């Protein structure tokens, strides 16, 4: 090879080598240890950019940050630092806001009054007194049975996980030709939104709008998208078109509330029990440079009439609050009311649904 050509090639290769070596740290940024100050600022800033309820809850986030930053910087251990972050996030008073440090502690989140409300719901009472022949579906996510030959019962304890919506079809098939089904979602803390909507789809004959969401889409605390409709669509091989009673209580949160929201726009559905917990935030997960994760609410969800139910909950059509006295007497008042209404012997007079 001639000398000039060799020199040229060397120059080109040298350039490529310099570029390759420099690419990572120079153009993308360094990796490595981060300080508590950097981590704190990342959490504060990211929450500031994405959290959806600052205005609704009248939270002064600057003030919160100013209070907790010195405490975070003074933390002497990772667990102490995680504790300060957790305290700061609890100021949002939102059950969807949590932090999960790696290797120091488990997830911590705000505990609302609904979390600690006694609901007096026990599955044991249901299966002992009202639905004595219950079975689990194949995947074990649902329990079902019949309260009498015409009234079926399905217990959905959670919407966690995914891919098991078809278990409701199995339950509907096994219950035979019941005229009414009681769907019990009491003490259901939520899970996957799509799963909840898919299960609700087994009870509708056509697509219906059940609510709206507006996503945070800008740095201002009032920056949101327009109203995005949430719909429930017919799903499953055999939609149930008979009468449906949905049992709710104060410890229904998040996707369980989405399920209730979807069910209550279906004309054949009556919601019985107590108001739900009022956790509607649509959380997103975020990461920290040290590998910890946290989540914040990113949307505001509305009912079909565009009412916000965050912190308020969804009121039932028929209010039946379980009491300690009922519990002591072995009575599940909400389930009893639903069975009575299903069999045409109303012990509880339906009330109009209070405004959310």
């Amino acid at each position, binding site marked *: *090879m001639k000398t000039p*050509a060799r020199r040229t090639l060397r120059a080109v*290769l040298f350039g490529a080598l310099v570029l390759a070596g420099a*690419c990572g740290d120079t*153009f993308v940024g360094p990796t490595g240890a981060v300080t508590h100050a950097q981590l704190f600022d990342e959490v504060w800033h990211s929450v500031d950019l994405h959290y959806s309820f600052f205005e609704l809850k009248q939270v002064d986030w600057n003030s919160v940050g100013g209070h907790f930053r010195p405490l975070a910087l003074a933390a002497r251990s990772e667990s102490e630092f995680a504790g300060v972050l957790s305290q700061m996030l609890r100021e949002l008073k939102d059950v969807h806001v949590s932090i999960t440090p790696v290797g120091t502690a488990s997830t911590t989140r705000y505990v609302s009054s609904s979390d600690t409300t006694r609901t007096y719901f026990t599955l044991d009472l249901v299966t002992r007194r009202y639905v004595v022949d219950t079975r689990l579906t194949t995947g074990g996510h649902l329990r079902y049975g019949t309260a009498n030959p015409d009234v079926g019962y399905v217990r959905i304890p959670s919407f966690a996980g995914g891919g098991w919506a078809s278990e409701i079809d199995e339950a509907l098939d096994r219950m035979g030709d019941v005229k009414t089904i009681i769907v019990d979602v009491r003490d259901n803390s939520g899970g996957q939104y799509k799963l909840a909507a898919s299960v609700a789809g087994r009870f509708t004959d056509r697509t219906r709008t059940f609510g709206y969401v507006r*996503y945070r889409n800008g740095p201002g605390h009032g920056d949101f998208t327009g109203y995005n409709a949430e719909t429930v669509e017919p799903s499953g091989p055999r939609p149930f078109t008979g009468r449906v009673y949905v049992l709710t209580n104060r410890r229904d949160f998040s996707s369980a509330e989405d399920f209730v929201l979807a069910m209550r726009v279906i004309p054949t559905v009556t919601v019985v029990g107590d108001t739900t917990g009022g956790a509607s935030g649509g959380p997103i*997960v*975020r990461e920290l440079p*040290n*590998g910890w994760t946290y989540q914040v609410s990113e949307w505001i969800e509305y009912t079909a009439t565009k009412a916000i139910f965050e912190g308020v909950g969804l009121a039932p059509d028929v209010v039946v609050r379980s009491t300690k006295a009922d519990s002591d007497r072995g009575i599940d008042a909400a389930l009893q009311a639903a069975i009575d209404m299903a069999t045409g012997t109303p012990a509880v007079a339906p009330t109009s649904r209070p405004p959310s």
Partner: protein
Amino acid sequence: MSTHKIALMTACLCAAAAQSLPAQLDTAHSRHSDLSVALGVAHTERLDATASPIRFGGQGVDFGAHYRRARGATLLLASLDGGTRDLVPHASTNGTAGEQLTSGVLHVAALRRLGAQAAGSGFAVGVDASASIDVTAHRYADANKSVSNFLIGALSLGPAVWWNHHLAGGGAHLELSAPLIALVDHPYSDTRIESRVNVRPVTARDFRGFTGAVVYTPAERRRIGVEYAYRFRVFGYSDIQPVHSASQALSVGIVTRFGSR
């Protein structure tokens, strides 16, 4: 594969290919076109603050189709490159975090040779227009292993330079372009939130970077030949939630030539 290993491979590849090849002249009156298709391995380092403050990096596969047409002093370059990468975090998450990046870049550049061409080499400058899209499926390290999709797309216009040098029967060339102005679509959050395109006009102050390639073609006079390339693409987008990305790829392709030199 680290960036250093890729650089070393590039060096070996080019050095081996450059051995014992006779020089060749490229006259200012040549009329010819080259079309090549290539497949290669790629490495990307990336930080998209919209998805995560953690830097992710990893390998994948790149493919590309490149067209070069020379008419006297005018040179037209067009290329379409794409690929996918599996990226892992540069932080100790609980093991489930990851990203899958899918990228596509289209470049069209028109250049003009400058000055008298020295024997065996040439230099051209011109304008490059490009369209790019990067879609990141980000898998979070939470209990649900939730996945969100993020994207950044850009249409840009900027200067381009091209330089070639014949190396003993083969030819090496360098392509380089950088955006000066651009229209960038970078949604505020993941793509489920807003599906509509919301572009922002920016200058090189906010959308900066460069794209380039070092290509070596042994036996340049053959109708069908082999082409070895090292390609890179670096960009940074200044936003409330910035994006930084650096990709490089080594590829081998088949090139077909038309016309006369």
